[in-house]
């Protein structure tokens, strides 16, 4: 692994060899992006980490793209999703065609969500009971704005949650509740934004990683780190602003 992607791992607390591979349990990572800059690469990276040989099980809730899309990307990152699926390390829930009746029948929507939730729960229970050594479970949701409500509540298991959402849709005061809940619950907030100077060929945007403060040994730590990034087919290159000539 090159040194640059370690910056991302380190900022998310992954650099530590003891917590090899995946995020430490019961962590929520909220990835926020906007129209100009997609934050999907962070999600891809985390999925890849979670599926690394020492990692655990991933439950992938795909709402934005079909399996082939992720498969192709992760293959370029060096991780074969199809094999992981066969090995029962990846539970891929293709929610692309998830259908709620449009007549605003609230109970029908609720039914759909409950069904989906029970699907997730079933998958989690299935894999934690079948195999004790499966490590911990990561739930990955891409992307939440398509499914506004379903994410909360899925954190009561011993698992980490990676959510991609679009930040800029919540500019006015209409639907701030879900987002503020998430922001409150999240341990890491990863924000992908465009550079103020516009996009460039070699710098695709900036990434702000905010680690929620916690009081450790009576020392309050809160850390926000800012990087520039360039997305490549086989990974993402992170660097400190101005450190690259």
């Amino acid at each position, binding site marked *: 692994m090159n040194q640059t992607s370690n910056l991302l791992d380190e900022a998310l607390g992954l650099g530590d060899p003891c917590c090899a591979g995946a995020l430490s349990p019961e962590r929520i990572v909220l990835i926020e992006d906007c129209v100009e800059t997609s934050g999907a690469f962070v999600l891809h990276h985390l999925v890849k980490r979670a599926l690394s040989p020492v990692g655990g099980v991933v439950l992938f809730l795909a709402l934005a793209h079909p399996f082939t899309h992720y498969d192709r990307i992760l293959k370029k990152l060096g991780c074969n999703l199809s094999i992981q699926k066969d090995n029962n390390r990846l539970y891929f829930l293709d929610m692309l065609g998830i259908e709620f009746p*449009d007549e605003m029948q609230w109970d029908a929507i609720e039914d759909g969500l409950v069904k989906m939730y029970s699907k997730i729960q079933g998958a989690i229970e299935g894999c934690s009971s079948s195999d004790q050594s499966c490590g911990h479970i990561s739930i990955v949701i891409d992307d939440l704005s398509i499914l506004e409500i379903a994410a909360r509540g899925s954190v009561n298991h011993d698992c980490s949650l990676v959510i991609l959402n679009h930040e800029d849709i919540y500019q006015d005061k209409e639907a701030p509740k879900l987002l503020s809940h998430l922001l409150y619950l999240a341990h890491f907030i990863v924000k992908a934004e465009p550079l103020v100077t516009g996009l460039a*060929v070699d710098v695709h945007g900036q990434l702000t990683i905010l680690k929620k403060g916690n009081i450790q040994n009576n020392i309050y730590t809160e850390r926000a780190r800012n990087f520039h990034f360039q*997305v490549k087919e086989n990974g993402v290159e992170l660097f400190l602003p101005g450190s690259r000539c």
Partner: protein
Amino acid sequence: MRAGRPSSFCRNQSTVIASAPPLLPGVKPGAGGKAFISSGIRDLDRILGGGFLLGSVVMVMEDAEAPHHLLLLRNFMAQGVVHRQLLFAAPAEEPRTFLGTLPAPVVAFKEDRQRGPRSDHDGQEQSLRIAWQYKKYFGEQQASETYKDAKEFSTDFDLRKSLDRRMLSLQNIDCVSLLKFSTIAPLRELCSSFLSKLTGNDVSVGCAARIAILSLCAPQCRYSDWDMISFVRTLRAMIRSCKAVAVITFPSSVLSPSFLKRWQHLADTLLSVRSVADDDENLAKLLTGYQDMVGLLHVHKVAQVNTQVPVILEANTFSLKLHRRRSLVLERLNQAPVDGSSGTSYGTSGPCSASTKSSSIDF
């Protein structure tokens, strides 16, 4: 995506592009399992790296004051009529009349449009002629690349002439009026049945399908915000697994900011058009060829499927021009040379000077 089949190779000796896996006519393969269809505007195809990505939703944000989005939509639809797979929906009483305003292909191509079995000789002759034709209109930098696919991939359209009525009476062109539906559910069913025609049949279907929706969120349709956004999401999900492209134009000004962002996120490719005022002196000083411009096209987002690497364009804003008053061309903005006396105008912020990243060298 589709594996090469030996049977089609044997049978289909007439096609000149036999080296590629059997793709639908009008479809150009790209890197990473991608495939493109033409937007009907050659320059736009080039800018977007090949055309509209198959399986993607293209959204065009309309200018509230000018109908420039119709230029894009008409070309896209005309190409679809040529390829005979089109679904069109508009908030008008009689959408079929809109088809009468579609531009006709440039004359030399007219007889070539009729699809059907061709002899080998015929095919070669066509491609030669088109290559020649192409050189006449455009620079030589691309001639080699388009030699092969120009025949099927895209057509030049003449905006002054309207499309032959006979073309429009063919089947596989569905027109619906959005005004007929009080909810958006029928439109969704229409789209899904239209798309299911593609997946159900085999290669004989012909072409990639196109769905064109004009002014989806226009106020006269009276759909609720959530209904529309959920329709777009469903459409996007349906399209993803089909050999189809949907182009939706929508008046962005009628949406609330947060819904506008949601719409934009759902778009795979996001474009916007803007008119330019005739008498904007600042802009006229800033840009060369300002008089010829009919509007500006802004590329916000380019479809990103099967890859995580974003597409970074050299420039995001292009000028819409009419070449010889008949074909639509897109050009990068060129800054006018600054003369000493008007040096101050350089600093004044023209409406689009911030996004002008083009070099000042005109090739």
